[in-house]
């Protein structure tokens, strides 16, 4: 069997296993279902690792059903793996394995359906990652979407869960249909759906209005998934209500897949026609706005899962800025940032799940000082929180320093300030929550909402997913340990930086992708790999952001003890914050209106410079 044949199997095996578990779920003992599901995910991870090793030498291309292209034209569907998306496939399968391992004891009352949905979700994400065909990307996008909506709304007795699932479903599906509209427009002009064929045709094509509109519509769906402001509203609602192991997949990789989709479609299909400078400008604007809005909203939360969700939004904005500079360094930095972030953020979500299970809610104020005796959980929490703030040697810190450097070199000198501010504010918010919950520091916070009745989600009514375990089970701690170790490995392994640089170089080499997919030519790397490694300056800035995060955390704890004059100086920010809170209204109509506003502004940013 060749490596190419692994790719269809990585998608098919989870689907088959999901059907088996659904069919036999009620006859099998729970422990067998647990082991079957986790072993399937781990097996897919193994296949992804093999694919990653092979794709390091040369891209792996499979035309499904043997429908190879003839003279550059094909009706077949390609699956293409380069090191970047093979690595992403490994990240997907690894996170699903950890989430399933954690669920052994955590999701006590669920039947086989939960595991079947998780495996379908896995299949959808793997398919989206490996596909080299825009229509196929839409289909897998909807497969992972449908599984994700169901997983979000799974606790059907919980009123917030069903509302969050519904909002998530409507906004994301509308985004997907808008993408499909773009695919249809593109097909009407070029008669092709495969990315390599489209890329080959578009390279000789002027960027006219139809191409710009098709591009904007296609990436709209992906940016909805990637939670770019103003497409981001669904994310906090969905994350706040989904079970913790599901949040791991949402924050750790599903959102980033949206970004990957946009970057892949641009590089391969549109990179030769729409000018790089316009795309860079548009994506930097969206990324910076997302990072800023996410960070402010993150700091305002007391619902722990919502807090982490807004931190994800904010970080995705930073990843976007890394991809936006459209060079090897920015892409390598962003990829490393994504992997480092996946480890620590997933660990934080799982730790929040432990808090929910032990103490019955996820409200920072209600949990004040409750977890004081829980040393091990506290150590893991603070390790992950400091990692989120950018503590070396976590992979996140390396990714952050490489990305901020690349964005600054590309001509956006203010970028490092934004990166450090965002890391400090989001890390500070997570640390503040930890210091309150595990340390009981600061004055006791008020239980009633300060934002006015009904204007804030507190997390006080969140229902635990288990019936209160006496001690934290070892499988749950093991899953958290693996995730943190993974994030550390991305920063510590001596060749990790170089591997990411190589992956980024292959990812940005669109001409190589097209020629290798269409003619099976063995493409040699045309450029040397960029250098990705720790630098003294980068480490210094990382420590600065950690120090600032600690400052922000203590400011959050002791704000009420500040002198009155200092507190008054913050008064002008109040109306802005009030408006931001009101905009996040939980209203499905508002969210869709924002979605259309976002499409209009994206079209303006990309289209106006070409007039």
């Amino acid at each position, binding site marked *: 069997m060749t490596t190419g044949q692994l790719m269809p199997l990585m998608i098919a095996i989870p689907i088959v296993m999901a059907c088996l578990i659904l069919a036999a779920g009620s006859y099998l003992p729970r422990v067998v279902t647990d082991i079957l599901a986790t072993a399937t995910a781990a097996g897919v991870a193994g296949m992804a690792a093999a694919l990653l090793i092979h794709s390091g030498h040369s891209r792996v291309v499979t035309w499904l059903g043997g429908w190879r292209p003839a003279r550059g034209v094909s*009706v077949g569907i390609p699956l293409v793996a380069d090191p970047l998306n093979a690595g992403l496939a490994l990240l997907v399968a690894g996170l699903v394995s950890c989430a399933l391992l954690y669920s052994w004891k955590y999701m006590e009352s669920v039947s086989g359906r939960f595991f079947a949905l998780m495996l379908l979700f896995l299949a959808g994400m793997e398919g989206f990652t490996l596909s080299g065909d825009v*229509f196929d990307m839409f*289909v897998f996008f*909807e497969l992972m*979407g*449908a599984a994700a*909506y*169901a997983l979000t*709304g799974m606790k*059907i*007795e*919980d*009123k*917030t869960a*069903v*509302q*969050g*699932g*519904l*909002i998530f*479903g*409507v906004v994301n*599906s*509308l985004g997907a*249909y*808008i993408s*499909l*509209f773009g695919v*249809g*427009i593109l*097909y*009407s002009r070029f008669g092709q*759906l495969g990315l390599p064929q489209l890329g080959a045709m578009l390279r000789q094509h002027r960027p006219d209005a139809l191409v710009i509109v098709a591009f904007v519509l296609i990436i709209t769906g992906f940016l909805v998934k990637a939670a770019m402001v103003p497409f981001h509203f669904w994310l906090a*609602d969905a994350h*706040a*209500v989904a079970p913790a192991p599901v949040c791991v997949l949402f924050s750790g990789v599903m959102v980033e897949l949206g970004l990957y989709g946009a970057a892949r479609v641009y590089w391969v299909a549109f990179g030769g026609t729409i000018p790089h400078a316009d795309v860079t400008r548009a994506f930097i604007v969206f990324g910076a706005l997302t990072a800023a809005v996410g960070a402010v909203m993150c700091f*305002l*939360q007391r619902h722990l899962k919502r807090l982490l969700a807004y931190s994800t939004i904010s970080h995705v904005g930073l990843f976007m800025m890394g991809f936006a500079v459209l060079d090897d360094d920015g892409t390598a930095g962003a990829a490393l940032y994504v992997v480092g972030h996946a480890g620590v953020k997933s660990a934080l979500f799982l730790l929040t799940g432990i808090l929910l299970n032990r103490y019955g809610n996820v409200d920072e104020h209600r949990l004040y000082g409750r977890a004081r005796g829980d040393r091990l959980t506290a150590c893991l929490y603070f390790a992950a929180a400091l990692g989120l703030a950018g503590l070396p040697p976590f992979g996140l810190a390396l990714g952050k320093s490489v990305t901020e450097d690349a964005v600054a070199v590309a001509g956006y000198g203010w970028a490092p300030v934004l990166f450090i501010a965002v890391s400090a504010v989001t890390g500070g918010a997570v640390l503040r929550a930890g210091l309150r919950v595990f340390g009981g520091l600061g004055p006791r916070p008020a239980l009633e909402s300060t*934002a006015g009745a*009904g*204007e*804030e*989600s507190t997390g006080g009514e969140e229902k635990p997913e288990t019936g209160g375990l006496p001690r934290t089970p070892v499988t749950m701690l093991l899953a958290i340990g693996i995730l943190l170790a993974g994030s550390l490995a991305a920063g510590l392994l001596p060749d990790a930086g170089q591997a990411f640089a190589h992956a980024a170089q292959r990812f940005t080499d669109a001409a190589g992708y097209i020629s290798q997919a269409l003619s099976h030519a063995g493409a040699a790397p045309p450029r040397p790999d960029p250098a990705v490694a720790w630098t003294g300056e980068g480490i210094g800035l990382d420590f600065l952001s950690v120090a600032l995060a600690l400052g922000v955390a203590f400011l959050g704890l002791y704000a009420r003890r500040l002198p009155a004059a200092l507190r008054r100086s913050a008064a002008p920010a109040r109306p802005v914050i009030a408006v931001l*809170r009101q905009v*996040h*209204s*939980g*209203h*499905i*109509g*508002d969210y*869709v*209106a924002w*979605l*259309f506003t976002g499409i209009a502004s994206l079209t303006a940013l990309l289209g106006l410079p070409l007039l």
Partner: protein
Amino acid sequence: MSVYPYFVAAWLMLVGGYGIVRSRNLVHAVVSLSVAQAGTYVLLLAVGYQRGALAPVFGSTTKPNKHVVDPVVQAMTLTDIVVSATVTALLLALAVQVNKRQGTPDPDELQALKG
């Protein structure tokens, strides 16, 4: 081929979106989503249409040298319909459940998720 079907497709997409924005009932919002999706069906079928061409089923009546409409977009539309059926069923079930738990299907009166 006239441009008329393309305007219908775009209009369906926009009016579906507008329906969700102005919706006073979650079931109505989900159905509006289906209306928006119907825009994609019209667009895809319009793309593949040729005047005077036959259905793309080759056999004793349609020889391989005859003009047929594009089968690729028809396959895409069928896939799209399958996706739509799944997602709409799931979302309607969630809408019913929201009504049960919060006592109202009106998005304006739902209070559970804010800020």
